[in-house]
């Protein structure tokens, strides 16, 4: 009995730390976004609130909190209230299985990755419902766009990690990281195509440029959250940034060796003479590496956002179904072959061969897609379809 109580208390503490940490991280990722944007655009970004604008996220939060909450008269009240919550809850629920460090995760499900994909995709309902409940045209277009977009990209997203799973031989997030630690190779080197597909789909899943169509500012004003204000809007905002963190965390876990240090191959360990410092470092450094990798990925996402224009709706669909999906499937087939080679060959034979096959696959894939496109266009023209 006492054991259970202790476990529950420990779990609660962990949950509190993760939730608090991520909430703060989300707030400061908006700060990061604005600072990086400022840096890219030769300006300062937030500078007024606190030194270098460091208190800006808090000021923003306060402002959103005390703002008037407006609801359109024609809106479906219940769903209107519910959708921001539905959007936010899955985003946070996913955090339960993300392994921040070897001894620091809320739980280790043996189907961790499946759980993440299952729960994360629930977030779409929030967006679609928000679009519908606003009873307004721009949000509806935004909601429908996002439904279509998320459903199409979810497929490739799921398929893109299967290659890595073949090597991991496990669905547990901790298991995946530990496999990378024991074999000493991050799956991004075995599965670069999978990583690229995953990351592109991740951008689409988090509604970020170049795939931010559901809220395309210049077309749909603000997309699905046009009618939302104050805290309800803040919920969507939070959900978006939490999703960014989640997507980066999954990429880190599955492809970038999780909490593993990039210098692990040197085999350096903290000397035993450090005593308590050693145990703190042993606990802290993995978390540091994990967060650093997440930070770099987020930085990359922000960088992409402020550099590229936005895709159009039909182009987005074309990329999802005609480019990413075929590649994801090709990648699975290739992974099977690669795994066999991996088991059979020494590393100096395996890597050149694997990367060669991969290169051929990519070139071949692009050719195939191009030819198929031309073929389908000519067919469409023959049959007179617009």
């Amino acid at each position, binding site marked *: 009995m006492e054991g259970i109580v202790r476990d529950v208390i420990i779990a609660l503490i962990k949950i509190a730390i993760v939730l608090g940490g991520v909430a703060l991280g989300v707030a400061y990722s908006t700060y990061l976004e604005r600072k990086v*944007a400022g840096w890219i655009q030769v300006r300062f970004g937030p500078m007024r609130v606190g030194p270098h604008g460091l208190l800006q996220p808090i000021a923003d939060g306060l402002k959103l909190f005390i703002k008037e909450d407006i609801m359109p008269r024609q809106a479906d009240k219940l769903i209107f209230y519910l959708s921001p919550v539905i959007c936010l809850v899955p985003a946070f629920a996913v955090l339960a299985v993300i392994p921040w460090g070897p001894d620091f995760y809320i739980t280790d499900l043996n189907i961790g990755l499946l759980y993440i994909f299952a729960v994360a995709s629930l977030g779409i309902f929030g967006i679609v419902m928000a679009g519908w409940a606003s009873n307004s045209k721009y949000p509806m277009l935004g909601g429908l766009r996002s439904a279509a977009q998320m459903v199409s990209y979810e497929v490739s997203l799921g398929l893109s990690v299967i290659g890595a799973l073949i090597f991991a031989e496990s669905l547990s997030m901790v298991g995946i990281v530990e496999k990378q630690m024991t074999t000493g190779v991050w799956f991004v080197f075995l599965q670069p195509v999978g990583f690229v597909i995953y990351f592109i789909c991740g951008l689409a899943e988090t509604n970020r440029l170049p795939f931010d169509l559901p809220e395309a500012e210049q077309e749909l004003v603000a997309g699905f959250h046009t009618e939302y204000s104050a805290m309800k809007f803040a919920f969507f905002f939070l959900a978006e940034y939490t999703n960014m963190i989640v997507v980066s965390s999954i990429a880190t876990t599955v492809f970038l060796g999780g909490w593993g240090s990039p210098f692990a191959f040197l085999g350096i360990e903290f000397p035993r003479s450090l005593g308590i410092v050693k145990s703190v470092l042993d606990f802290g450094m993995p978390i540091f590496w994990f967060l650093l990798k997440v930070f770099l990925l987020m930085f990359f996402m922000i960088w992409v956002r402020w550099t590229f*224009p936005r895709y159009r709706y039909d182009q987005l669909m074309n990329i999802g179904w005609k480019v990413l999906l075929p590649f994801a499937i090709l990648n699975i087939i290739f992974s099977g072959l690669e795994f066999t080679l991996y088991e059979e060959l020494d590393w100096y034979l395996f890597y050149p061969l694997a990367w060669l096959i991969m290169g051929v696959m990519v070139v071949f894939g692009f050719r195939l897609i191009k030819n198929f496109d031309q073929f389908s266009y000519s067919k469409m023209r023959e049959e007179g379809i617009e």
Partner: protein
Amino acid sequence: MEEKGFGTEELIVNMGPQHPSTHGVLRLLLTLDGEKVVDCEVIIGYLHRGVEKLAENRDYKQNIILTDRLDYLASMTNNLAYVQAVEKLMDVKVPERAEYIRVTVAELQRIASHLVWLGTHAMDIGAMTVFLYCFREREEILNLFEMLCGARLTYNYMRIGGVSCDLPDDFAGKAYKFVEKFPKLIDEYEVLLTKNRIWLDRTVGVGVISGEDGIDLGLSGPNIRGSGVEWDVRKAEPYSIYDRFNFQIPVGEKGDTYDRYLVRMEEMRQSNNIVKQALEQLPEGEIMAKVPRIIKPPKGEVYHSIEAPKGELGFYIVSDGTSTSPYRLKIRPPSFVNLESFKKMIKGHLVADVIAIIGTLDIVLGEVDR
């Protein structure tokens, strides 16, 4: 669209007058089938101030400030078109130096206007950073203009018979410095956009209009040149002293958004070239012709048009010979006429293309509604 089974309805969306990317108070009534634009009605008039009527009750000099407020992103060229029209009516010969100054500021204004176009157009398509880069350079041009006449947006700089004040001492030096470095900065924008795969996907084949259609609809300026029609008033009917400068007129081929983009980018380079030549050849001398204090043109009428950044800007003035204000002033604003082609360009495209096409037409609502 008639369908059996599930009935689908067309959706009518009101885009504007308050919308982030209609470039002012343009209102579009879009009929959508899904994301596809089936029909589109352009509704204007939200910024109507009755400039043409106001002009009938003011004297010729006072009307210059009204022209500032037509295309407020290119006041200098508006001034130029108007004063040249009056000069043509009165047969005034403008001094050399004034002509050079006019050409210099007009071409700088063209660059500034194109920079705003590029920034907003890119931002509409989602590339926000280009916008701030463009405004960085536009700022320098505005600073130059501020040195020149104290104003940053509505300059009221040109006068009938010349310009209001001579160039400040360090103007030529600063302008030259800007001109020297500007081509490199254009390259910088092009790095971000010209070969960018997404930019190509979004602009190639969007908003296509053929040269003939363009002529039928009165399209002018970079828009018609994008369709391969080599029509530039600066070359076709050289006004001022444009025949003395060496510059090319870039033309596109297909008449899509991408070609118009390339045309305008090249035009900025050419304008830059003209400014450089003008600054090098700048003569000394008077900046105002001998013009009577009270302007009372002889009875008659005149039409004069110039190549404004947005297209052919024309002023038609009727003078009754007795009054100090025009009997009738008619403006041919390029934005208004160019907007006619919008309907033709948008048919069958998607919602996202609507804003791309508004961007590529480069309209300013102050000029559309007058």
